[in-house]
């Protein structure tokens, strides 16, 4: 009986987390369109619902009702499977993210590594999508994507190693708790180098401007998405936005103090302690989402060779130097 209650509780919590996340994803598209619209002297969606608030649902319904087109030359099984692999592996990463203290579905001791593993798994979906479409544009897009994600994952992992050294743990919950005694209550101050490397890699990891080469619209039409339409296309987009949230959440957790406020703020204004931690967490996540959109409205796109050069020649060496220095400081000076 007790076991059943535990299972039921877990299932309900999982459903709640996924449901809420999907809602956030829906409104991330709305947020993006509004923010970029403002920056470009437009107004964004206004027609569906009050101030266009129902636009995400209209888009969803539209993509659901579209004709499901599968290219004649495509490998049907893999073509079906690709979006599922991508969405499933990206959504699984949500399980280890603590939205507040001990708020993760699964408080894994290797939380960060689990997220990296799932991100790598999603690349398979992209490669399979490009390969099974049987189109040269899709093929190019997926090859680019695989190379890009693998290269930037290295830089990302190494830059996070600095945080692991500081926190003495790979558990996301412990990492947040370890930041309490830091200046400003966040690792972003002492780990500024790692932070910058991580932020740049996060853009590449999620295929966002200026590193949106795998789906570079003007070169490769839509990259690995070229042959996809309707709801399968929407699934890829869903995965992209969820992975943006996950990257934003990782940045909030590992570098910006997670759900906690900096110590001096809570000491000055003690009533802020009463606000649930998830509010601060979401504010930090959305601040980074806004940064994603801001960059998209501002920067042109890198070329593929330049992207690889940045990853291998700048970010990886810099992050390696960063962990060496962090390790030395940690061992002998602290």
């Amino acid at each position, binding site marked *: 009986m007790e076991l059943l209650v535990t299972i039921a509780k877990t299932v309900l919590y999982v459903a709640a987390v996924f449901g809420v996340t999907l809602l956030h994803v829906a409104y991330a598209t709305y947020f993006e369109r509004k923010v970029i619209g403002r*920056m*470009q*002297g*437009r107004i964004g969606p206004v027609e569906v619902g009050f101030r266009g608030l129902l636009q995400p649902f209209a888009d969803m319904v539209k993509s659901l009702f579209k004709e499901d087109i599968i290219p004649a030359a495509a490998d049907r099984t893999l073509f079906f499977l690709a979006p599922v692999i991508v969405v499933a592996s990206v959504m699984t990463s949500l399980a280890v993210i603590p939205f507040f203290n001990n708020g993760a579905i699964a408080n894994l001791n290797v939380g960060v590594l689990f997220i990296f593993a799932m991100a790598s798994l999603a690349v398979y979906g992209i490669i399979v999508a490009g390969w099974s479409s*049987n189109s*040269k*544009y899709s*093929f*190019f897009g997926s090859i680019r994507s695989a190379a890009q994600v693998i290269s930037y994952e290295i830089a990302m992992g190494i830059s996070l190693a600095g945080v692991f050294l500081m926190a003495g743990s790979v558990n996301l919950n412990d990492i947040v708790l370890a930041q309490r005694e830091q200046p400003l209550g966040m690792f972003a101050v002492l780990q500024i180098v790692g932070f910058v490397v991580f932020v740049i890699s996060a853009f590449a990891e999620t295929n966002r*401007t*200026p590193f*949106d*080469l795998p789906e*570079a*619209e*003007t*070169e*490769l*039409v839509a990259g690995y998405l070229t042959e996809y339409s309707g709801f399968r296309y929407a699934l890829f987009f869903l995965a992209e936005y969820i992975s943006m949230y996950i990257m934003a959440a990782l940045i909030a957790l590992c570098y910006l103090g997670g759900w906690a406020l900096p110590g001096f703020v809570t000491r000055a204004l003690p009533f802020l302690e009463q606000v649930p931690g998830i509010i601060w967490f979401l504010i930090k996540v959305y601040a980074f989402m806004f940064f994603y959109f801001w960059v*998209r*409205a*501002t*920067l*042109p*796109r*890198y*070329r*593929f*060779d*330049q992207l690889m050069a940045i990853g291998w020649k700048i970010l990886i060496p810099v992050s390696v130097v960063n962990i060496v220095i962090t390790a030395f400081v940690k061992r002998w000076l602290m």
Partner: protein
Amino acid sequence: MEPVGVAGTETRKELTLNMGPQHPATHGVLRLTLDLDGETVIRCTPHVGYLHRGIEKLAETRTYQGVMPLTDRLDYVASVANNVGYCLAVERLFGIEAPDRAKYLRTIAFEMSRISSHLLWLATHALDIGAMTVFLYCFREREWLLDIFETICGARLTVSYPRIGGVLQDMEPAVLESLEAFTRMFPEKILEYETLIDKNRIWLQRTQGVGVISAKDAVRWGLTGPTLRGSGVSYDLRRDVPYDAYDRVQFEVPIGNKGDVYDRYRCRMEELRQSNRIIQQCIAALPEGDILASDAPELDMPISGKKELVPEMSLGNASLAFGDRVSVAPKGEIYSAVEVPKGELGFYLMSDGTGNPCRMRVRSPSYVHAGALAKMCEGGFIADVIAVIGSIDIVMGECDR
């Protein structure tokens, strides 16, 4: 997917990628076949003709004035420039001289179309390289110019505003005021575009040293306009063979030196400022007077011979029969060129004395530039091909005619 080498047989390393005619970055219906080694372009072969409408042949069946709307459809983003180019060819052929006011009005409209064409170029070029905000900024200003065109003659894109020997109608003072307000505001807006991309590291890395063509090669390939000037050759028909009011205004011809995508970009950005200057000077110096030459012949009616309706069989088959063709225009032939936003647009016209051009041939810059794509893209990456297509500012309506 083509096999990239089968065990035991020959190994093929090249992949042929067909880019276009339906592709987001080929500016219409340009088609390129790229032979690729990885992401490197080994060979680039442009194919044209997907927008061929037979404009040159159609012109032979129209009256001289009736050809005008066809010229709108050459470079449809700068239709006034084509109209003026055609009018000048006819005027030079028949020895007509437009009155001063008409010349100034044509110059104003010409430069307006240059600005609107360059704005569209900048918008799409930046979008191709990934800077999407520039796209919307440019369209915002272009909208103002299109609105002015609409007030002048009722059309926004295919305007047919000039006439042989003048212009269709005068510009109202309100229009000129609006235009003046535009020229006062515009330099600031150019700075705004430049803030976003001019010194942007990504933009510089994407454009500098890409799609290089030397001055010698550029001349050999017959490039004209900003595409040629980016390579450092100072050649501008507005200055070298002045027409309309260009000999009465001050402007500079910006040139680059490296001949890469960035230099061509800089040339066009400078030209935006110069065009703005020309419009300002023209508005200030606009003389009073006629807008259509009094000696302009009646070229808008087909022929001055008699016309009669000959009923045949039934009303459905009634046809218009013309009397004998009478010579209404001088005979002769001429090649006349103007500096349109894309380069040198030449009209070769032949008159046999009737009301229709006997032959019309167009030398369009986009066609010549499309040919040079092969040279500029070789050895670059796929992404460079996109940057190069943007930098030669190609319009397929003009290329395919």
